[in-house]
């Protein structure tokens, strides 16, 4: 369920960073204020525990496959929403930096998808509502199962939305939903059952650990609406600003729009930042970013724009060859620089 940097656009990445950062800031403030000092090492060590627990598999009967604990729901039950969110976020940071699971830009998306839903939706609104104080074992089992399934479904759907909004993957929305939701239904059920089994054991052996958090009402107090509205505004604003500045040439979007509407070309705005950037680009580039055009469009475009060929050359097999030659030379130069630098740094040290 980890999204990679390679598959998201800067606008989506930055928007989700803004959302996640505000939730994390809220959680950190809440934890510093309301959580006693003894919980600080507990939170850290439980983060490490989730890593360790993910290394232990169990076989799922009749399928031949094996599953492991995800940990989000378990953390929420043990620590409460805010602390659990921070722990999940810290796990994802380590995974992004060391295991190349997800990336730094995608971190906002990943923390939101895998942290927000179990900690702030699944736990307070489903688990607490269904299980109450959790003393009834059957109720508790179903509450955990439903909460885990719903959290993972929401998370998977958020992955689909973020990926589609980024427009790097070509996977159609409908197909992607049909792919993601059933897979994560299965994962959610496994996660729910595993979490419930572990909670049951802890409940039997050391009830005070779980009861401490389950009796206190940890639901966010007051109305949730202003928080959600605030988050939405933050996301839209950031995404808007970033896409305005970052996409000097919105060719990815243009392509997908052209694909959807069947329109050959979309007028790029010539004013504002877009205009300035595309002017600079046309000025500097021998071959602007519209290099990969379908053949059908290339021919008329070539006639129309013959006059400004220096800035807007037609597509011909030769130009893609030029691109390939240039790419190979660039790579060789880059590696050459690296080689020389390494020799040089060995000599100096």
């Amino acid at each position, binding site marked *: 369920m980890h999204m990679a940097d390679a598959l998201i*656009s800067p606008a989506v990445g930055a928007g989700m960073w803004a959302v996640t950062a505000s939730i994390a800031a809220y959680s950190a403030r809440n934890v510093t204020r309301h959580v006693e000092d003894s919980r600080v090492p507990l939170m850290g060590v439980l983060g490490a525990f989730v890593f360790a627990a993910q290394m232990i598999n*169990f076989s799922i009967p009749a399928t031949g496959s094996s599953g492991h604990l995800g940990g989000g729901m378990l953390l929420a039950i043990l620590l409460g929403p805010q602390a659990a969110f921070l722990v999940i976020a810290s796990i994802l940071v380590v995974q992004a930096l060391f295991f190349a699971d997800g990336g730094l830009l995608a971190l906002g998306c990943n923390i939101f998808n895998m942290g927000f839903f179990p900690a702030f939706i699944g736990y307070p609104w489903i688990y607490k509502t269904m299980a109450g104080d959790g003393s009834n074992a059957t109720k508790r089992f179903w509450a955990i199962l439903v909460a885990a399934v719903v959290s993972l479904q929401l998370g998977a759907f958020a992955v689909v939305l973020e990926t589609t909004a980024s427009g790097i993957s070509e996977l159609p929305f409908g197909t992607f939903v049909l792919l993601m939701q059933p897979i994560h239904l299965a994962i959610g059920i496994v996660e729910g059952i595993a979490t419930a089994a572990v909670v049951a054991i802890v409940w039997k052996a050391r009830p005070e650990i779980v009861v401490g958090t389950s009796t206190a009402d940890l639901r966010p107090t007051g109305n949730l609406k202003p928080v959600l509205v605030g988050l939405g505004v933050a996301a839209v604003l950031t995404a808007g600003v970033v896409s305005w500045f970052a996409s000097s040439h919105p060719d990815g979007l243009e392509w997908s729009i052209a694909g959807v509407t069947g329109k050959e070309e979309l007028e790029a705005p010539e004013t504002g930042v877009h205009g300035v950037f595309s002017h600079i680009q046309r000025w500097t580039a021998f071959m602007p970013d519209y290099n990969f055009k379908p053949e059908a469009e290339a021919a008329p475009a070539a006639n129309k724009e013959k006059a400004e060929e220096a800035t807007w050359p037609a597509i011909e097999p030769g130009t893609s060859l030029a691109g390939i030659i240039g790419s190979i030379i660039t790579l060789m130069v880059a590696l050459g620089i690296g080689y020389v630098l390494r020799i040089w740094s060995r000599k100096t040290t």
Partner: protein
Amino acid sequence: MTMPNPHAALFDLNRIESFADRDSPIHRIDPRAKLIVTMLFIVSVVSYGKYEVSALLPFVLYPVVTTALSGVPAGPILTRLVWAAPFAFFMGIFNPVFDRTTVTHIGTLAISGGWVSFVSILIRFSLTVSAALLLIATTGFMTVCDALGRMGLPRAFVTQLMVLFRYLFVLAEEAGRMTRARNLRTFQKRGQGIRVFSFMIGHLLLRTIDRATRIHLAMCCRGFNGMFARVQDLRFRSVDAAFIAGWSALFLLFRSVDIPRWIGRFVETAGR
């Protein structure tokens, strides 16, 4: 993502972190500067349209120069990259399936838009992941955390990251021992099911909680007041500012001029 072999994954993690102890011009750069440049690099790389291939290639210079100057061997970084690649590969492989419009020709071979964007995804993936791995390999996780804290990340979260990282190896080793013990005592699938699993995890959890209590007591004895004391004082020197400025200028240049295409055109005209 599941880790196929916990010990190998752990070994890898330890190995990448261990390069941070070396000394080189890159290692001596302020961690904040390295963090900023890494972020700028990733944002520049992903800001291209999805059909961009050639313009992405000059960005290879950053990981190449960093590896060369820092003395971090390229092998482990590349290994890690290949390990993580299947995800990007499977997400990207849908593009050739759904996007079949021919966009260009190489000789007589027609290339569809899907393959172009697939290659683009793989290049982006390699660049962004290697940049993140190199940040750790030249800086070390704890130092990155400290830098994040100095740049405004809430202290509670910095402490969280540090404690997590400190106990990651301890608990992972314990989990590894438990798995080995179970594997030695089970035959085929018997005993690998959820019953034994939940007891293992449950007891690991209980031991972990007890460990946390002991750690807290030990920390209190040593004067812990909610946050860690900083080991070293960071000084942001002019070299660090130059490091940021230099790379930003290069990224901006790469971003606005398609250098490979420029070289290609040049070679072509020269050849005629």
